[in-house]
């Protein structure tokens, strides 16, 4: 049954979220849904997939959870005893079925700022996206043991420190929503800009980032920054197939085949962008930049003046040195590469970039475009000596060869 995987992936997050609301405990929810899925694997191939697979999963999971809680509560001293009484009081007459709010609750709990950002990401991928610990470990380039421990630790903190399973009240929303957005964005960026790792899991993370951003928009339609985030990931993702070549090297924007950009993602991205007006977070200016690239018919027709305006807006919101370095490149295309190099000097000494190849790659690119190939070669080599993703390093090697060949 090839389509079971798709059913599981679709039903996992809503089922865990519904069970978490019902039981008040994330671990109980996750274990119960896992058991229900195992039972589905046994019975569905024989009996067929039920008409309402989600309802089936939730019902079975609830029964499994009740069985388990009854068993555990009959043993003295078990901390779950209190949970059981609480659940019994609530559930004898209540029917559990997934509701949309459950997922939103789960997103806010997983991205709670009292959990560190990597834990937020791992928890989101596990509880909402339904990735296995092994898949998450591969995606984050960590050992399975480390990821498993991180997730357990985060769930323990949610339980023992009593992180509430809820959408925060209105007065807390402005400070809490950005954490959910950042967490979803990191799902996407782990896939899109991940430093290494096999490409299947990267594709999955990109898809999941796009899906979660869309989901958040439909759950919080008035949250402009959610629309800006959705626009940003869709517009970036429209280029996913063209940004790495057959040799695994990054393809710069000016060399990408624009005919292969995903038009439907671009259209959806632009739709989301239209809903994002007045968003105040860092996603809107980045989405605008991505949209200006996505809608330029040819590289030569890129509207660098408008891109620089968007970068200036971004600089008012964040002091990200990476954004500032990329802005220098845009200035180079608008005002000439010497002006770009001068703008780059303003960020070159930022200690946060000390180990990154960002400044060196951009400097090399600007120098190459001015025809200063020897200097460019030197900076491409410096960039290669710094941290960077596999595809980026492959691209830099290519540039080194080109520059060396022209001497």
């Amino acid at each position, binding site marked *: 049954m090839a389509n079971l995987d798709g059913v599981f992936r679709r039903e996992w997050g809503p089922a865990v979220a519904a069970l978490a609301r019902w039981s008040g405990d994330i671990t109980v929810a996750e274990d119960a849904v896992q058991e229900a899925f195992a039972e589905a694997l046994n019975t569905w191939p024989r009996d067929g997939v039920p008409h309402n697979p989600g309802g089936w999963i939730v019902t079975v999971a609830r029964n499994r959870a009740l069985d388990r809680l009854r068993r555990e509560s009959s043993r003295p*001293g*078990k*901390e779950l005893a209190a949970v059981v009484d609480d659940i019994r009081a609530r559930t004898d007459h209540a029917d559990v079925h997934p509701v949309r709010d459950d997922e939103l609750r789960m997103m806010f709990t997983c991205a*709670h*700022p*009292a*959990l*560190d950002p990597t*834990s937020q990401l791992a928890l989101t991928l596990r509880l909402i996206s339904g990735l296995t610990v092994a898949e998450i470990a591969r995606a984050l380039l960590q050992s399975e043991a480390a990821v498993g421990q991180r997730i357990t*630790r985060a769930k*323990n*903190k949610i339980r*023992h*420190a*009593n*992180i*509430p399973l809820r959408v*925060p009240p209105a007065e*807390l929303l402005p*400070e809490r929503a950005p954490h959910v957005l950042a967490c979803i964005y990191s799902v996407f960026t782990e896939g899109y800009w991940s430093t290494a790792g096999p490409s299947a899991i990267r594709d999955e993370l990109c898809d999941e980032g796009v899906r979660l951003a869309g989901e958040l928009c439909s759950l919080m339609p008035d949250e402009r920054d959610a629309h800006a985030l959705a626009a940003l990931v869709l517009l970036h993702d429209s280029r996913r197939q063209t940004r790495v070549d057959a040799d695994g090297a990054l393809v710069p924007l000016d060399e990408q085949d624009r005919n292969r950009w995903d038009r439907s993602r671009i259209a959806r991205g632009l739709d989301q962008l239209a809903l994002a007006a007045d968003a105040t977070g860092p996603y809107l200016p980045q989405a605008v930049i991505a949209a200006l690239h996505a809608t330029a018919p040819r590289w030569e027709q890129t509207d660098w003046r408008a891109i620089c305006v968007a970068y200036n807006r971004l600089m008012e919101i964040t002091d990200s040195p990476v954004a500032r370095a990329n802005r220098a490149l845009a200035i180079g295309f608008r005002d000439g590469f010497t002006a770009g190099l001068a703008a780059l000097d303003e960020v070159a000494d930022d200690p946060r970039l000390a180990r990154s190849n960002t400044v060196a790659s951009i400097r090399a690119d600007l120098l190459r475009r001015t025809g200063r190939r020897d200097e460019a070669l030197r900076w491409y080599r410096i960039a290669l000596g710094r941290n960077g993703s596999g595809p980026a390093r492959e691209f830099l090697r290519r540039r080194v060869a080109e520059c060396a060949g022209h001497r």
Partner: protein
Amino acid sequence: MHYFALLLGPERTLDPDAHSAEMAEYQAFHEKAASAIRAGDALTPSATGVRITGGPDAPTITDGPFAEGAEVAGGYYVFEAENLDEALALARDIPAAKYGAVEVWPTVFYTPPSRPVGTSWLALLLEPPANTNAPGSPEWDAGIAAHQKFGAAAGDRTNGGAALHPPATATTVRVRDGEVLLTDGPYIEGAEVANGFYFIDVSDRDEAVKVASMIPATTVEVRQLMGVSGL
């Protein structure tokens, strides 16, 4: 549930004006948070405190101050709050969050003092993170037994206290330029972390040290309460 808030930061010497301004800030906080604060006070300077290491069998006593320039405990609160969001909302309003940090710990249980704590002593139990145990584990149960033994020996010289969950459940709150910064875990990584506390109700410091020396913990920091909070 009950949360323990531990105020950490550099020990500062304030001129009289700054001192009374800060006291006013604390008074304002106490009024605002009155319904949630169950206990709380400032601690006397660490120079007047004592640290006991080695456990009840072989206690070694060191007079404060303990380490030059280190972040030291300057005060505490016990909050009763519905959930972590509420506890963090209280913690961010504590003036110490602006110049130091506030660690917010969920308690496993909290025994309120049965007599006013006044200017008695706070015995803060400190452990290397690897030595902390999860409630329900055999190690935890063994610890509880040791503490019951201590409780029996100390009698009414203890006056309430709390056991804390392991450090992975703690959250550190700082406020800088009006912005609230939360971090997962205790303030200083790798250092010994809070694991519980007792109020010790005795008439002098020597007696407090004697009682605290019997506490089963890797390190016990004994600090006299200022009795300034009026809580």
